[in-house]
């Protein structure tokens, strides 16, 4: 069997991803996680001195704490099974990637296993986040210097 035939056969046999169902579940899961986040940030805005903008920092930390509990008890995996991108895109998905890698590689020791593999999955997010932030801020700084835009 040549490669083309194989690719065609694979396409026919492999189950079609139910797009509409995935989108609805991603919307509901992601929306629910953000709703929980809104309750957490309301808590920080009510009981501590935070505004809508600054509350995001403690909220993110709290959400990652929830992600730790869910990942540790093996529940995040189950949410991810029906939530798809709805569980991967929120910051809890980033936390889950770091935390699950840390737990998974525990057997190899804390330095080489946990320390070395923690950012195996999440590292690319940090890399491209930092790089794009650098480029964007650089362009903006230069544009401000030349008086094209203001801060």
């Amino acid at each position, binding site marked *: 069997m040549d490669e083309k035939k194989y690719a065609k056969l694979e396409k026919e046999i492999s189950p079609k991803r139910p797009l509409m169902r995935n989108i609805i579940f991603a919307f509901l899961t992601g929306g629910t996680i953000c709703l929980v986040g*809104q309750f957490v940030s309301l808590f920080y805005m009510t009981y501590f001195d935070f505004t809508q903008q600054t509350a995001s920092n403690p909220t993110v930390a709290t959400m990652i704490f929830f992600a730790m509990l869910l*990942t540790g008890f093996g529940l995040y995996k189950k949410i991810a099974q029906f939530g*798809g991108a709805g569980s991967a895109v929120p910051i809890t998905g980033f*936390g889950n990637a770091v935390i699950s890698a840390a737990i998974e590689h525990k057997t190899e020791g804390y330095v080489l296993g946990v320390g070395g593999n923690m950012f195996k999955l999440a590292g690319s997010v940090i890399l491209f*986040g930092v790089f794009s932030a650098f480029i964007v801020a650089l362009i903006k700084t230069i544009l401000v210097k030349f008086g094209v835009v203001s801060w």
Partner: protein
Amino acid sequence: MVSIFITAFIVGGLICVVGQLLFDVAKLTPAHTLCILVVAGSVLDGLGLYEPLIDFAGAGATIPITSFGNALTHGAMAEAEKHGLIGVVTGMFEVTSSGISSAILFGFIASVIFKSKGKV
């Protein structure tokens, strides 16, 4: 007060739908999808569009990974405003410190407390 909960749900859900479309329609891996969303958040902040979105949707804009790109750019630009070009590098993690530090901290605590049960 109630309206921000509704917009948080809808905006957060819609950002996740964009991610799901990148998964299913563009056939990207989760890692590629998250990278694209982070870059998108950072560019949106450069254009000054992310801040109004946070005012409109609250956690619906700050919880998705796009806010990570926004926070990095925001810190870099705020510091650049004060100190010029060098601030772009020094200010980078100013705003987003909590995401990275809590991920490292809780990741380590989890690895101490929990045992691996296959892939978690």
